[in-house]
């Protein structure tokens, strides 16, 4: 399988007419506020280095204004960087010619937007095939492909509706179908589910995970919601004021928050669901008939032990026993440590 990883290297973005003039000052440590007050420029991104793995979901998380949208728009270069590189299959996207960039956007990327950004004058089917219509795919074929994906996101029968005849959740399904119809290796999702109410949001997350199971795209998913990040993200990067303050797997972040800001973030998380037995297991096997698969959550282990009234369980992988956890270690890990 082709390598569809994306490497962001030393990326800076300073908004304003002369961004490049202040690069050195920012590299020298000038803060966002200082830059704004003294020079009237806005620091969008500061020294971003993220390795987005191929065929995985990379989540970028942060509060409003932290630079998430700015970051994701560098991947298809809707925003020009001030300095830095975005490498995909050996090529720096930031240096592509206009024509190459257009081809790259048409064939390699597809995007889903927070506010859906559907074309209001086109029907659902015509919205869905918009991307491949731009590629020049014939009407017959594009309709067929669009119908296939509409069906996959559960919009069978809505082909001839106009977007504003649909609810928000349905509109975003159209947005997702439009992106999937493009059959691109990279899927960019900027707060794609943030405008939806909680139940529909969970629903969309499930659809995405289910699709990703068979599609294996490189997905860059933006959210300001930690639960969503932990549920979807194979890797998570946390942004604050335009800089990455921590990146890693969900577990790493929950178990070892880099600073008080992130501890605050992860305080309310259901740790039992995030942390895996592998993370806390002790070596050797315990005297117990219970076994649990490697990669299971603490919650599941606890449930298993409670139900069978046995206080230890062996963790097994494809090659046999890996270790064990006990009721005590599980509960210790599930309880949020007192904030230091």
């Amino acid at each position, binding site marked *: 399988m082709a390598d569809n990883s994306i490497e962001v290297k030393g990326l800076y973005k300073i908004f304003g007419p002369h961004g490049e003039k202040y690069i050195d000052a920012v590299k020298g440590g000038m803060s966002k506020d200082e830059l704004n007050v003294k020079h009237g420029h806005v620091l969008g991104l500061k020294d971003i280095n993220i390795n987005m793995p191929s065929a995985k979901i990379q989540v970028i998380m942060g509060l409003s204004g932290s630079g998430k949208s700015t970051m994701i728009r560098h991947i*298809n270069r*809707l925003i020009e960087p001030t300095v830095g590189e975005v490498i995909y299959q050996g090529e720096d996207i930031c240096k592509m010619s206009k024509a190459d960039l*257009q*081809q*790259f*956007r*048409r*064939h390699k*990327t*597809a*995007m889903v*937007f927070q*506010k859906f*950004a*559907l*074309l*209001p*004058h*086109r029907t659902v089917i015509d919205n869905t095939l*918009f*991307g491949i*219509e*731009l*590629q020049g795919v014939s009407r017959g074929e594009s309709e067929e492909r669009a119908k296939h994906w509409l069906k996959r996101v559960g919009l069978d029968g809505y082909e001839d509706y*106009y*977007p*504003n*005849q*649909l*609810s*928000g959740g349905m509109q975003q399904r159209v947005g997702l179908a439009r992106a999937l119809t*493009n059959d691109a290796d990279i899927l*960019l999702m900027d707060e794609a589910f943030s405008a939806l109410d909680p139940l529909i949001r969970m629903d969309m997350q499930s659809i995405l995970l289910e699709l990703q199971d068979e599609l294996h795209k490189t997905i860059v998913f933006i959210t300001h919601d930690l639960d969503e990040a932990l549920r979807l993200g194979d890797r998570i990067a946390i942004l604050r004021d335009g800089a990455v303050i921590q990146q890693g797997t969900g577990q790493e972040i929950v178990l070892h928050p880099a600073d008080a800001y992130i501890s605050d973030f992860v305080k309310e998380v259901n740790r039992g669901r995030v942390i895996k037995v592998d993370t806390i297991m002790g070596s050797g096997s315990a005297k117990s008939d219970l076994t649990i698969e490697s990669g299971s959550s603490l919650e599941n282990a606890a449930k298993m032990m409670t139900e069978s009234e046995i206080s230890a369980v062996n963790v097994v992988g494809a090659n046999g026993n890996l270790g064990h956890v006990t009721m005590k270690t599980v509960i210790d890990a599930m309880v949020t440590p007192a904030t230091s």
Partner: protein
Amino acid sequence: MGLKDILPEVMTEFPEMGRSDIRDFKKGIDGAFRDFVHDYGEVIENFFYPLKMFLSWFDRLMLSTPWPLLILVFAILVWLGSRSWLITIGTVLSSLLIGYLGMWEDMMHTLALISVSTFVCLAVGIPIGILMAKSDRLQSVVVPVLDFMQTIPAFVYLIPVLMLLGIGKAPGLIAVCIYAMPPVIRLTDLGIRLVDKDVLEAADAFGASGRQKMFSVQLPLALPNVFAGINQTIMMALAMVVVAALIGAPGLGSQVLKAVNNQYLTLGLMNGSAIVAIAIVFDRVSQRFGKRLQRHTETIHG
């Protein structure tokens, strides 16, 4: 004793340019323009010749078509545009009444003038509007020109048009176009600029070229505004038919002019009402048509 007596003279009498200087100044410009007309009049006339031929041809076509056939064509066009029986029947009845009252021929002249000038306005105005929307520089140049075109009294630009093209249908057409073109340009520009930034970003993200963006996103979404512009352009063209008659464009307008000059009340009222009838039909049809293009804005839920 008034204020005038205590102030020095320079403040009470405006320090005008010398009388002979003013005369020379006007003479100079008039002379230069006359030379320009002498040297280039033919070139300009040739430039507008195709337009003149087009108008004459259309005029003759309208006049040589048997009236029942024309009324049928009107009815079909109005129906297609408005999908309203009321407007269609109203059109047929008012055409019959106008013909019965002896204004058929003049109505044909006026319709020909309005149709051709609207066509010219759209053919020139919409592309200008598109270019303007793409370039702030062009917009900053065109907007003052449009302001000028719309505010300067029509009689003033009739003078150079007359000098260049003489009396007749073509100068009438040009005068109407100068007056009626600005709205469609403005609203095309505005409509394109008002297109939702998010939607444009989506088009960019999927790799749309400039042309694809214009024709499959910007123009379709600007259409309601463009249609408002077309509607205004038609209305302004109709408002100009009397002025165009001043420089020799035949039609209902010239009858109104005759009525004014001779104080024929009934003649004036009849022709004036005929113009109003045409205006109402054009207005309703173009508005209905514009609205039908926006069916997608109707919501079912949400």
